């Protein structure tokens, strides 16, 4: 036995054997066979290399009340393909080999539906199952020609940090297509004139997630309109800016006509609008795109007046900070393309700060390097320097540091800030949403976080379709970039530093990322609100929030304490950031957590409500007794006991 292998495998074996505790005992064995990283939590709809997934993750089953007695039948189910509503099997092939990088070659059956690839290997006991939503597939490539043994081999590059390799015998009937040719058709429906599965998925959930966000009521929650800010419908038909939402909050003394002139000076017409307002100091976070300064240093009276109005809306400070997310070199280079940045001469009382965050291409490259370092093999002895060379954590740090500076200016400096990058839909969204997460405890609840995503990302036109490339076979598209993944990573870093400040748990974040790709829900389809409206996404698809909000207990952090008005200031030193192992390296069976944390969390939630119940009971009893024994006593202390609120 090789020295290096022995203990690692001990460890992994060990951990996999512990796995069952998550759901049921017998699933343990099955999990141990699979190469799913299988976080110690119920499998997500995506992390589905495992036997235990298929049943559990299909939402329709999940929503049903779970009973312990169902365990045994469920285990059987797990090895079978559970079709979602309107999911159809389109092809099936026997004798396909899956080369698992952790277990080795496995021989089994492949099924391709309009939603997923399902591989099952019955040779092993327990059966090995791989359940992969096709939306995850980024590229399918045929590796080599027909070999001497007549095998054809296909590689599937996935968007979620893994690569899969399959092989099967050369077709004898040359007219018959390989199953992987069929797969290509359904993996890239947009390129093949088909519909994304989200439009067919007919699941009905008890909660309608499309109702989660309403712009007007969110502004109302923030106290808008007020004496300095108003809500405008100038973009009602997306005429001022086709990538902005229809409802915008702007300074009260800027009429709609002037907004249009400001729009002419901002890239893509993305004028500065309010994202968040401090409930006390009235300091605001506003977002926009770069000004169209150009090489000649063009100026716009309207734009200058507009920013002055934003500053004036906050009586606490006579200064305005403009945060340009880009490195200053890049901002200057943008002048050649007509863009640029605000000059401090033109904008009185404004201070411009560059946050040095790199563009989407750098981020894409960084994640690619990270994938190389973590999948499938990890070089133990150089792990940290390899990780460093990807610069991934450094990028995370810069984003967090930028958001921290924004939050600090608003909270401690009581100063309004304007945030932009080039177009104001990538880095700007990261920065505004992260700073809002730090500033406003509402966004740290499950519902609030959904609102935050709907508002800062979806309604303000982060181009999900382009960045992710849903159903598009063009995997080299330069518009693809893990901007949103990076944001979720930053949120995870925050949850690590403030474990009790967030109502949601890690599984919530992983689930969001999984369904970012899965194309099961309509939430992340399209590039803008306008497109979503045109495609009738809310009518034709199911929202991810319907699924999540129908089973909140899966996503709730039991450690959560609702200190809604407290501001989080994370430590952004690289020394205090960590790689999100539970997401990026989850496919490696040797990385499975040792303790089923998710299970424990659930127990804790149950225990908490049990305690709460006991408090209530005791309180009732006390009230009764004291009422009977000393009813004439005013100010009995029983009344002064405040029941602790639960926010489960």
């Amino acid at each position: 036995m090789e020295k290096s292998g022995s203990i690692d495998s001990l460890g992994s074996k060990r951990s996999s054997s512990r796995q069952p505790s998550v759901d049921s005992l017998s699933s343990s064995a099955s999990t141990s066979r699979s190469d799913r990283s299988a976080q110690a939590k119920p499998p997500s709809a995506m992390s589905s290399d495992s036997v235990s997934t298929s049943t559990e993750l299909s939402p329709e089953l999940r929503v049903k009340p779970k009973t312990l007695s169902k365990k045994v039948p469920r285990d059987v189910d797990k090895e079978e393909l559970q079709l979602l509503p309107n999911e159809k099997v389109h092809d099936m092939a026997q004798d396909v080999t899956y080369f698992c990088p952790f277990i080795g070659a496995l021989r089994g059956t492949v099924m391709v539906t309009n939603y997923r690839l399902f591989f099952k290997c019955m040779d092993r006991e327990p059966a090995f199952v791989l359940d992969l939503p096709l939306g995850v597939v980024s590229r399918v490539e045929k590796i080599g020609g027909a070999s001497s043994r007549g095998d054809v081999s296909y590689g599937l590059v996935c968007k979620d940090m893994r690569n899969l390799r399959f092989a099967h015998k050369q077709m004898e009937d040359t007219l018959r297509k390989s199953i992987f040719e069929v797969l290509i058709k359904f993996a890239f429906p947009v390129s093949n004139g088909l519909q994304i599965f989200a439009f067919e998925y007919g699941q009905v959930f008890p909660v309608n997630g499309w109702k989660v966000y309403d712009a007007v009521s969110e502004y109302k929650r923030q106290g808008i309109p007020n004496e300095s800010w108003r809500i405008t419908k100038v973009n009602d038909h997306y005429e001022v800016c086709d990538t902005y939402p229809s409802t915008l909050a702007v300074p009260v003394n800027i009429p709609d006509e002037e907004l249009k002139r400001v729009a002419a000076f901002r890239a893509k017409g993305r004028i500065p609008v309010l994202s968040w307002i401090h409930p006390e100091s009235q300091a605001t976070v506003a977002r926009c795109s770069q000004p169209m300064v150009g090489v000649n240093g063009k100026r716009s009276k309207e734009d200058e007046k507009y920013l002055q109005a934003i500053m004036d809306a906050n009586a606490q400070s006579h200064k305005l900070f403009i945060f340009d997310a880009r490195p200053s070199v890049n901002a200057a280079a943008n002048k050649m393309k007509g863009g640029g940045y605000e000059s401090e001469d033109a904008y009185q009382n404004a201070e411009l700060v560059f946050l040095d965050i790199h563009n989407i291409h750098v981020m894409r490259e960084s994640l690619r390097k990270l994938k190389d370092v973590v999948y499938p093999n990890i070089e133990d002895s150089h792990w940290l320097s390899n990780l460093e060379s990807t610069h991934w954590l450094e990028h995370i740090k810069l984003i967090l540091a930028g958001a921290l500076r924004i939050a600090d200016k608003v909270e401690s400096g009581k100063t309004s800030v304007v945030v932009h990058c080039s177009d104001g839909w990538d880095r700007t969204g990261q920065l505004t949403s992260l700073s809002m997460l730090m500033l406003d405890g509402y966004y740290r609840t499950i519902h609030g976080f959904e609102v935050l995503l709907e508002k800062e990302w979806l309604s303000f036109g982060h181009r999900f379709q382009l960045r992710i490339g849903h159903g598009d076979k063009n995997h080299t598209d330069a518009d693809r970039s893990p901007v949103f993944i990076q944001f979720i990573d930053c949120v995870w870093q925050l949850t690590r530093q403030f474990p009790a400040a967030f109502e949601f748990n890690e599984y919530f974040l992983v689930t969001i990322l999984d369904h970012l790709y899965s194309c099961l829900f309509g939430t992340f389809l399209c590039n803008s609100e306008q497109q979503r409206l045109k495609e009738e996404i809310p009518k034709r698809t199911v929202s991810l929030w319907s699924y999540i909000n129908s089973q909140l207990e899966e996503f709730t952090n039991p450690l959560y304490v609702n200190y809604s008005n407290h501001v989080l200031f994370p430590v952004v030193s690289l020394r205090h950031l960590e790689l999100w192992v539970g997401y990026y390296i989850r496919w490696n069976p040797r990385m499975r957590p040792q303790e089923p944390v998710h299970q424990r969390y659930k127990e804790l939630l149950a225990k908490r409500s049990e305690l709460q119940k006991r408090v209530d009971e005791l309180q009732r009893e006390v009230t009764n007794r004291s009422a009977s024994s000393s009813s004439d006593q005013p100010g009995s202390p029983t009344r002064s006991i405040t029941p602790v609120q639960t926010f489960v």
Partner: protein
Amino acid sequence: MLTGSKTTFKVRQMLPDIKERMLSQSGVNSRSRDVFGLRCLPGECVLQRAVMVRKKLTAREGRGWLSGTLFCTHFRVAFVPQDGPKPDDNADPVLLGDHDVALASIEKVVVVGPNRTKLVTSNSSLKFTPEELVLYCRDLRVVCFLFDRLTPDTQVLEITYTIAKTYQPPKPGSVLSFQNAALGSVEMKQFLSNRRRDTHMNWHESSSDWEQELERCGATGWRVSSVNDRFEMSTSLPRYIVVPQKVLDTELKKSFAHFNEGRIPRWCWRHPRGCDLLRMASFQNNIYHEKDDIRNLETILFGCQASLCVVVELGEELPSPADVQLAHSRLRALCLGDISTSVSVPDDKWLSTLEGTHWLDYTRSCLKKASEVACLLRGGHLTVALQEPDDRDLSCVVSSLVQVMCDPHCRTQHGFQSLVQKEWVMAGHRFNSRLNYHRDNDKEEAPVFLLFLDCVWQLLSQYPARFQLTDDFLLALHDSVHLPLFSSFLANCQRERCKRSQSLGQSYTPVNGWRDMLHPDFSPDPSDPPLPPVWDWALQYSKRRRDRFTQPVAPVPPLQPLLNGNLNTNPDTHRLTDTLPGSVFLFSRGAFSCPANLVPWRSSGGSGVYRKSHRRAASSESVPGLERLLKAWALSEFPQGLTSTVGTQGPLDTYEPLLPLLMGPCMGFWRECYLRGALHAQAFSHPISANHPHPVERLAREVQQLKDKLAQASQTDPHLGAKTAEPRWSDTNLNQNTNNGTFLFPAQRPHGTAAPRAAPPPTSTNRQTSRGPPPASAPPSRPSYKDNGGGNKHTFLFGHSSATEARPEKRCYPTPSNAKLPKSNGPSIAS
């Protein structure tokens, strides 16, 4: 206010004899110990103080700033928060308050001026008034004090000079004066000599201690031998060692010569499956083996019943002490940073620099080796002997790690303390040399014990729910190592601890009880301070801190049967018969081998039966069998066998080892220890990371309160509710635990909360303070402290005088639990 810069405050100790004797019974002198709000140790002098100082709090302390007064005494730099709890005059002395730094643990003093920083030494003079004082500590803390503009300049300068002059620059001989400053007073000596030692742990000092351990492990066939009673057989071994029953002391005596330093194979622990774990030094090669010797050696090595012995060589794959020292010094340089030299590593090179220290590599290799040994032991029917050339460093690490992995008892606080006592203190780890307290032996310095603590922390962070001890405990132990005050660490072996009278006078005082038992003729040298064992935590930490050493509820048992189920389902046992009885194998680099010179007496051409039979046993065919066996354990090819039996298995095997994940990304970095320097941290935080009770804790408390109320109500006390007691928070910082995912319910913790109270809705109180600039002064838990202190003495636990005070309380709260109020819950009803 101070007038003269050099004024010192000497505590008056001129007390009448009778009074002193009386006081010494409780070990305290209540009136005179409070100097300007600082509760001095007996005999401790305040050399200098500075008012209006703010201390930067670390993340663990809740971050932010705390205002108060800074003191420098002979022994420590003390910080007393402005509105902290009033010291309880009758409490036992605590060496260091929550915010104090012992002078001996200071490594560097740096001041920050308007636009410069300067390293301050005992003869430097400052040309500017410092705004900030940064103490770099040997235990990797960085403590930062900020002077206010209102702090008198003289005070600032003087306290800086005083600290710089008084702290112990590492030089030989300074340790003794430090010890004297802390423990040297008559009162302190008396107090220490009256301390009862903790009976919940096994000290492994007497032969009955060892017998108790044998019994606990269910080890039969072994006996405690006192053959080394006078340290004549081996100077570094303890008085009592555990050897096979079959070997007589006279036979035993002959075997010492065959091992380096006379450290013969000794029993450490037995796995419940029947495997024994032994430790030994390397063989002495050039010695003639007599036939009788060989028989004894064989018996000793094979233990009592096993037919198979595996020698695990620890030298090759593990770091040497010198490696450990180098790695640790790099780690310190990296983590402490140092603003005075500005050599701190840029953030973007942090990861590769951390990798370059190799500290995590060494942690990994120790854990890996221990995992291998744990797997061997799990297999059953063999004896595993750890062999290291001198058996005093890495074998301590590995043997104790194996036990932490396999034995749930060792994951409790007391069990862990017993383990350290057994495998480190008594086994003769050279603490004194390795920690180099006297700074006189840099060559030998190597913090092997700290490496071990890091390994335990790795296990704890991967299996948070399986430990009863917490990382607060590990941290406390880590910090104590840097205080040259404890008998546990101030000697290299038991013999040195016992040889106190001959030593230079700084090393040893027998712990209480020994004197009479073992050394009737022992007369303590009155000039030396008696040194307490490190396990006397009450000397160092307040009750509040000590409460965090353990998780309030017992660790959860494993949630399902683990790998391999139990022995019956283990298909490997029969394979053991493949190998001949009496075989010895070497386990190294993950593989078994049978080198000819493994056991010198077998290869040295002795004669007779042994040689013959073992030559056959050593044949190479049997090796693969064994290797297969290990592989089988490691890869465990039979999970389905396991699952088929799970339903019926009943109680779980709690001895199933905790095998850590060892891949690069799985090795954690102990930030709470190494990155405690406040300089890295922001000064704000979420309130829950301060000492706020978690909602679950509040719930639990309410349950308790309501129960108490019910009890009262049932007594139909007419005064019900006429008086409400003050809020009492137990300061268990739940959040600290939750960081590890070990979330615990304090419901079972005896809160002793006696009275109903109006719990202020925490969210609303918080709302008032949370907006605007973060509170500059006290953490939110402050008020509760004040309530606790209350200005009202709560002394009924300690003296008869206050019994009368306590009585009305009893009358008021008739529930039985009230009579046993812990002192921390102390405000009397009158307050």
